[in-house]
């Protein structure tokens, strides 16, 4: 479904990604784990066109999307919940969700999608007319995910959904990820929380200073002694 072919990305003179190749297949949850600054967010920004690769290609459903402007990707079926949640703090919860459905015209469909988001995250329903900036970190994360789902994406990109959240909230977020997967949406999950990410994904890539250093089924990586030592703190 999504393929990165030998992608290198620079920030000025600094190489942030070096020859990254990876793929995500229909229906999978694939996770990209790595330490801070390893290039996880850069990878997502490159997929969404916020950054241009210096070399290599990003291919989605057979089409090279490397040079496609970001705002065209939603229509292609890619949606992203950005790092730091990226909700519109100055907009209400409802308005944030409406922006997630920006390209949709059918009002009844939008209303139905919104109900679905509220069903997945009932807390958002309670806060419907509140400004997103007044929400707790966990609620903002729920909103960012709910908003990303409003476009009914085929591929959902999640950037550090558990960052800075209390363990109980992290649990809620990962349950939601399982639920989204069960409904058939493909997910690329970028996480620092390797333990949770490996527990809720099919396959995983490990990124270190801009290079993929390991890949394989998440179960295998979770039992790999190197991963255990470096990422799982065992």
């Amino acid at each position, binding site marked *: 479904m999504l393929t990165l072919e030998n992608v290198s990305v620079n920030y000025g003179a600094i190489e942030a990604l070096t020859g990254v190749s990876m793929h995500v297949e229909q229906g999978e949850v694939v996770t990209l784990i790595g330490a801070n600054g390893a290039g996880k967010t850069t990878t997502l920004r490159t997929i*969404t066109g*916020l950054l241009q690769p210096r070399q290599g290609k990003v291919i989605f459903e057979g089409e090279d999307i490397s040079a496609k*402007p*970001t*705002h*065209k*990707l*939603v*229509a292609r079926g890619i*949606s*992203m919940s*950005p790092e730091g949640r*990226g*909700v*519109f*703090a*100055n*907009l209400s919860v409802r*308005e944030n969700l*409406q*922006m*997630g459905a*920006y*390209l949709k015209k059918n009002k009844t469909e939008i209303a139905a999608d919104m109900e679905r988001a509220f069903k997945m995250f009932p807390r958002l329903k309670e806060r419907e007319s509140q400004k997103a900036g007044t929400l707790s970190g966990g609620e903002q994360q729920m909103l960012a995910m709910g*908003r*990303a789902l409003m*476009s009914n994406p085929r591929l959902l990109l999640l950037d550090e959904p558990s960052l800075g959240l209390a363990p109980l909230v992290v649990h809620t977020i990962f349950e939601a990820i399982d639920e989204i997967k069960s409904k058939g949406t493909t997910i690329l999950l970028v996480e620092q929380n390797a333990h949770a990410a490996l527990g809720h994904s099919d396959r995983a890539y490990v990124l270190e200073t801009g290079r993929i250093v390991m890949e394989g089924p998440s179960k295998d990586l979770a039992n790999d002694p190197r991963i255990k030592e470096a990422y799982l703190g065992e």
Partner: protein
Amino acid sequence: MDTFVQQLINGLNIGAIYALIALGYTMVYGILRLINFAHGDVYMVGAFAGYFLALSLGLAAAPSFLSLGIVLVGSMLIAAVVGVIIERFAYRPVRKYSRMTTLIMAIGVSLLIENLFVAQIGAAPRAFPDFLGSQSQLPYRLFGNAAISKAQIVIFLVSVALMVLLQWIVYKTKVGTAMRAVSFNLNSAKLMGINTDAIISLTFGIGSALAAAGGVLTAQYNPNIDPLMGILTGLKAFVAAVLGGIGNIPGAVLGGLLIGAAETFVVGYGHHIGIASTYRDAVAFAILILVLLIRPSGLLGSTVQEKV
């Protein structure tokens, strides 16, 4: 009391014009963090667009509300196109560079427009057609000596209508929600599928149309228009936007009305406390300095937020 009411009417009237222009400054700042120094000149372009429209359509000879309406709408459309062109060809190409580059560009565009107009049509003032017959007609007596002219009534009504319309667009429509989304986080907005360049164009278009309305309305009150009329008025409207809290839409309206009122009160009452009426133009800038010292984020502005 008469004087107070009279000065208040005059002040709020000028203030309404400042508010219309200040809205453009504040909307563009809200979305791009750019002080669009060419905005005062778009106000001037709006006035001249109205003037030439009236001449070419022969409307100057047929003063009526309808003629004013046609000229007003026409000049707003022309100014909107001018604003969109300025953004597209001057600001957009340099948006990726530092904010200083865009600022210098804005100053350059401003000087270019002014000097193009001076070179093309001369610096001498022209007389804008008096569509309402306001200048020959006695104003309506309210009470005592306080009075309001037809032009003032029209200025109030039209500017309030435009502000209500803007409020509705920004807070009640999908495209307005997108404008607010873009102003908060450009990249997140792109991820929603919002064509952010189109939203930025639209913002320039709306802001420029409002400035043009200000230009045509001012000209019903003070018919002398010239290519440099936008400099001082533009700066005062900018001060109004800062006073209200730049980036804040209700703040721009409040700031405009306050600056207008302050200015006319200096004329009306200043001599009691030893301030000559010639200080009227200095007031706005004294207010600017005070605001920056005491409340840099403006009256309604929240804490200054840096864009990342």
